């Protein structure tokens, strides 16, 4: 695509998300959400392959419907409370409609069905935009609404998300679908804390985005689209090791950084006396740990029968523009647990 058009669309994507974050009137929030949806449509479908176009269409329909639902809830709130202000959600019905719209936009269960379909039709760079950047705006709205009204719908949707994220990713062979279900599960962990302390959710969301971006960039570098190509990938050897560490961190194993995403919600739940929901989260994340380990196993823990010339390879893999970004993001997964004391500022 033309470079100027590309730059214009990326700028309007960033402008749309910024418009959502920086305003407290519902109209520019809706405008920013629609602007970010519209401006990535050409970015997702610039290769005219039918899979990308179908994924783009599905994405656009889901996001446009939920943005209309959001505007509907905002206008209903205007009718009841005479205010366009974001901080004046007074009636439960308008809160419910707006939250339902945000749940569809984020891809939380029970509205998660579009997410693996859309992600599995797109190349990896587009996947990064959909799975990481586009979640910033609706997550921000959800967390700022949780500051005002605490509703149990968030807990129900997050428990369903964690269980769906675990069971949905079990029988998949496409790496993009596995990462989609893992994303659904992680968003479940993040949004459940929003019921108790919404400020902590921002921290967990930041960790999730950094971790997910690193993994998706590594997958883009090595073109790891299916499980069968994991053992034949040509990446720089250090990237192969860091890929395994990043995936285990995403699964939440203790000395790695991703453990923060699991231990902080558990502390928050037990401090609030809400021990009943903990087993659901543990079961969901245990099942998702299984398919993370399956990817790690196929990447670096097994040597498949191959020609001996492949084992001693002179090429060191393609290191592209994304290599420095990967190298900057990976240390969070290794040393991230040292950032745990930040959480104790919020209690």
């Amino acid at each position, binding site marked *: 695509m033309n470079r100027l*058009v590309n730059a214009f*669309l990326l700028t309007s994507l960033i*402008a749309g998300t910024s418009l959502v974050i920086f305003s407290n009137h519902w109209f520019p929030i809706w405008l920013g959400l*629609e602007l970010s949806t519209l401006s990535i449509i050409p970015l997702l479908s610039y290769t005219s392959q039918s899979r990308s176009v179908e994924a783009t269409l599905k994405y656009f329909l889901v996001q446009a419907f939920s943005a209309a639902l959001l505007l509907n809830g905002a206008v209903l709130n205007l009718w009841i409370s005479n205010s366009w202000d974001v901080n004046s959600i007074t009636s439960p019905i308008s809160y419910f409609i707006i939250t339902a719209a945000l749940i569809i936009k984020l891809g939380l269960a029970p509205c998660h069905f579009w997410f693996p379909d859309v992600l599995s039709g797109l190349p990896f760079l587009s996947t990064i935009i959909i799975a990481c950047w586009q979640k910033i705006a609706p997550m921000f709205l959800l967390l700022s609404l949780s500051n005002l009204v605490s509703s149990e719908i968030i807990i129900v949707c997050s428990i369903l998300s964690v269980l769906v994220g675990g069971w949905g990713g079990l029988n998949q062979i496409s790496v993009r679908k596995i990462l989609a279900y893992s994303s659904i599960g992680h968003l479940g962990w993040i949004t459940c804390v929003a019921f108790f302390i919404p400020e902590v959710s921002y921290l967990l969301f930041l960790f999730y985005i950094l971790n997910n971006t690193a993994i998706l960039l590594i997958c883009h570098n090595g073109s790891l689209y299916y499980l069968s190509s994991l053992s034949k990938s040509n990446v720089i050897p250090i990237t192969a090791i860091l890929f395994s560490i990043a995936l285990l961190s995403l699964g939440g194993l203790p000395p790695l950084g991703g453990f923060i995403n699991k231990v902080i919600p558990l502390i928050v739940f037990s401090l609030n006396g809400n021990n009943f929901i903990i087993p659901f989260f543990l079961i969901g994340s245990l099942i998702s740990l299984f398919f993370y380990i399956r990817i790690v196993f196929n990447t670096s823990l097994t040597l498949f029968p191959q020609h001996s010339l492949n084992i001693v390879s002179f090429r060191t893999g393609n290191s592209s523009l994304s290599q420095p970004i990967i190298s900057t993001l990976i240390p969070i997964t290794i040393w991230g647990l040292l950032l745990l004391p930040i959480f104790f500022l919020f209690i």
Partner: protein
Amino acid sequence: MVFYLFMLLLLLGSTLVFYSLSPYYAALGLMISSLFGCVVLTSLGLTFLALLLLLIYMGGMLVVFVYSSALSADRYPMVSNLGEVVLLFLLLSFWVLFIFEDFLESSTLFNLLSPLNDLSSLSVLYDYGGAYLLVGGLALLVVLIVALVVSYGSSLLALRAS
């Protein structure tokens, strides 16, 4: 009472939009619903918004819709299922009337004595809300560029229907 008749005709228009077999009757339904939407707005005193709605719907959106359906619809369209549409509309309206029966007893005042009720709040859009208009205009520019990029197609010559 007449007010609710106008809103019922609005419902008839939208039923025609989603239930008809051929897109030409859907365009007719859009026309009916925009017309009666204007009538409803005018009877509440909001004449400027009614004219704006009519202009944008009929003059802009409907023209584009009719052209694109003429390019892409079937060559021999099926004759409409107008009887089923009217039946569905009657069922919907009777269902709503049975639920909101006591709502019909109250009377809505027609503000025809003081029209232009909407201009006092519309002026705020141009005054304090000028930034919203600017951002809205920029968003429409993005929409134009997106529509052009998406429909560029495989032929690099011109904007074609294929």
